[in-house]
């Protein structure tokens, strides 16, 4: 028997003792976030505010995908289909009646065409849309997931991609309701940073609570070893369904936020480009890590904005480069390949950013197996009442 793993003595006890400082840290982080958002809300121009908002919306979607795919190991490429469903539902609810009239949307049922939220407080209308969007997406996910969640590996990926293509096809062709490729425009701009970050925090909270509960353990167990999980009584299909449906709900709820931020909904915005973007966020951060998903979302939202300047052309000494549109995509792609080569588990792997991670970081071992050394035990194994991971 080779190395005896190093052990933290009295880990259980310290977990419970650590609860108070952890809660304090979460409170501090939330306060800082609130201060930043208040500052941004007051002094940022629309462009910067939109970027800040998009970080939160993308984080919501990425966290939902982490729940659906990262925890269970069921790789879904259909997430953006739920985003589309939420976005269209939000738009159809909150469009002003004149844009829902017979002239524009002849296929819309009368009650929906007559449904008028223009008198509502914008934030109430938005919240309502998010809830309905989430519920519709979750309902669709239940129907779709029943059969699909029985598949595994690449087959789920392909089948969920099929779902995405079907949603896209319907959005493109059901002109009476979606206006087809033209999309819906004139969607009132209700989204603000508070709503977006509120939604993101709800998503993070929900994913985290599930993660540290029997549900989360069942999900991770079925990812780690499907057969062993079933042998200890885990109903794999049920736990995948929960991950899939909750993930769909959160994504569906993010849809109206996006629609009310961008002001229009069109099928092209909810297809492969967006899908791959979100998947890259999750993989970059570390599949299975909630904080990794948030970090990935932030990087993938900010980096293209930052890289835009690079495309404009530049002077390198005597050489003057003209505008190179597409360069930012190439740079991001190469960066992603490098990350995959040198850190295939993403930035965080399975771990969470939290007090525990900082405290417990041991000497790094060579190779990519670092996360299986006991000194780097995930900060995920937190018991109830432990707020260490956020």
């Amino acid at each position: 028997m080779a190395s005896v793993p190093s052990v933290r003595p009295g880990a259980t006890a310290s977990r419970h003792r650590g609860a108070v400082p952890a809660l304090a840290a979460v409170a501090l982080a939330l306060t800082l976030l609130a201060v930043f958002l208040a500052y941004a809300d007051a002094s940022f121009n629309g462009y910067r505010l939109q970027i800040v908002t998009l970080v939160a919306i993308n984080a919501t979607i990425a966290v939902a995908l982490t729940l659906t795919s990262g925890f269970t190991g069921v790789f879904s490429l259909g997430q953006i289909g739920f985003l589309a469903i939420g976005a269209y539902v939000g738009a159809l609810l909150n469009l002003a009646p004149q844009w829902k009239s017979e002239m524009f949307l002849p296929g819309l049922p009368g009650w929906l065409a007559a449904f008028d939220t223009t008198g509502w407080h914008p934030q109430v209308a938005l919240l309502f849309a998010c809830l309905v969007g989430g519920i519709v997406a979750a309902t669709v996910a239940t129907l779709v997931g029943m059969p699909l969640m029985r598949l595994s590996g690449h087959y789920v990926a392909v089948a969920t991609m099929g779902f995405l293509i079907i949603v896209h096809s319907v959005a493109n062709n059901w002109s009476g309701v979606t206006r087809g490729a033209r999309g819906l425009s004139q969607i009132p701009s209700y989204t603000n940073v508070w709503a977006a970050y509120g939604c993101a925090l709800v998503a993070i909270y929900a994913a985290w609570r599930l993660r540290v509960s029997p549900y989360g353990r069942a999900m991770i167990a079925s990812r780690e070893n499907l057969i062993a999980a079933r042998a200890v009584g885990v109903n794999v299909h049920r736990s995948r369904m929960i991950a899939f449906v909750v993930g769909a709900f959160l994504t569906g709820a993010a849809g109206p936020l996006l629609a009310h931020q961008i002001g229009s909904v069109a099928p092209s915005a909810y297809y492969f480009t967006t899908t791959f973007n979100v998947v890259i966020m999750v993989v970059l951060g570390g599949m299975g890590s909630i904080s990794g998903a948030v970090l990935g979302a932030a990087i993938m939202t900010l980096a293209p904005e930052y890289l835009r300047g690079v495309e404009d052309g530049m002077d390198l000494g005597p050489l003057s480069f003209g505008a190179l549109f597409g360069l930012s995509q190439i740079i991001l792609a190469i960066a992603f390949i490098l990350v995959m080569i040198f850190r295939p588990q993403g930035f965080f792997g399975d771990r969470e950013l939290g007090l525990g991670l900082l405290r417990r970081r041991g000497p790094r071992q060579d190779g990519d197996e670092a996360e299986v050394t006991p000194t780097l035990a995930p900060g995920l194994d937190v018991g109830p009442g432990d707020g260490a991971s956020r």
Partner: protein
Amino acid sequence: MSASEFGQQFVNALGLGSIYALVAIGLAMVFGILRLINFAHGEVLMLGAFAAYYFAAAGLPFLVVVLLAVLTTVAIGLLMERVAYRGIRGAPDVALLLTSLAVSIALQNGALLAFDAQPKPFPTPAAIQEQLTVGGIQISVTNLVTVGVALLLMALLTLFVTRTRLGTAMRATAENAMAAQLMGINLSTVIVAAFAIGSALAAVAGILWGARVGRIEPLMGFIPVLKAFVATVIGGFGSIPGAVVGAYLLGFGEIYLVALLPGELSGYRDAFVFAALIVILLFRPQGILGSSEPEKI
């Protein structure tokens, strides 16, 4: 549907399926060995078509053009394997898939910068642009050539994988990489061979696609590779015969769906194709020709 229409669509579907098959074989080969769904395979196809375009512009005879295009894509395929994929061998499936996607995006945008976004007319030799009328059925020579070339290459490939040492090694590796290595098969050689053959077929597929469609552009690779991907799934991942069967099924499914669906529903074609795909997966998750060996417990 009248008999002549059926016949015409049949030839059409055969041609389309043949191109899908050539692309799908490359995907299946690499997948069988590396568990990598190589999305950048579509860009290899695109670069093969562009190579052919530029070599033809240089005034070379068409067969030389094809040969040079094949050599170009083989070089690109090997370079791709060396630069992007060798470093992540054995990584999780998702990491492999997304890396290939990143390679695809990089090559696409690189091509956009190098070749311009404007589609270019593909220099199909006039000889194969003809139309034949056989028994009231119009048949384009391009389709016939496509089917012929595809069948010839598939026959050659079959000979290769069954009759040569390297081919046998490839099959063995696809069956069980660990065992194959223990038996002294060099994994790298097999991988290089898979990429080389796949890329060569992709170049031919790119040229045939160019001839069929008449134009080439930097983004042309995505649709064929997506369809080929679906074909490999239908046929059973990693199975070369499965990929071919899947490709023809998809070709026929697409062509006949358009023909049979009422006009106002034909926009939903992809939805129908993918709904069918999902149904196939539900009833035969291992694909049509995939083996259903339960995981060893």
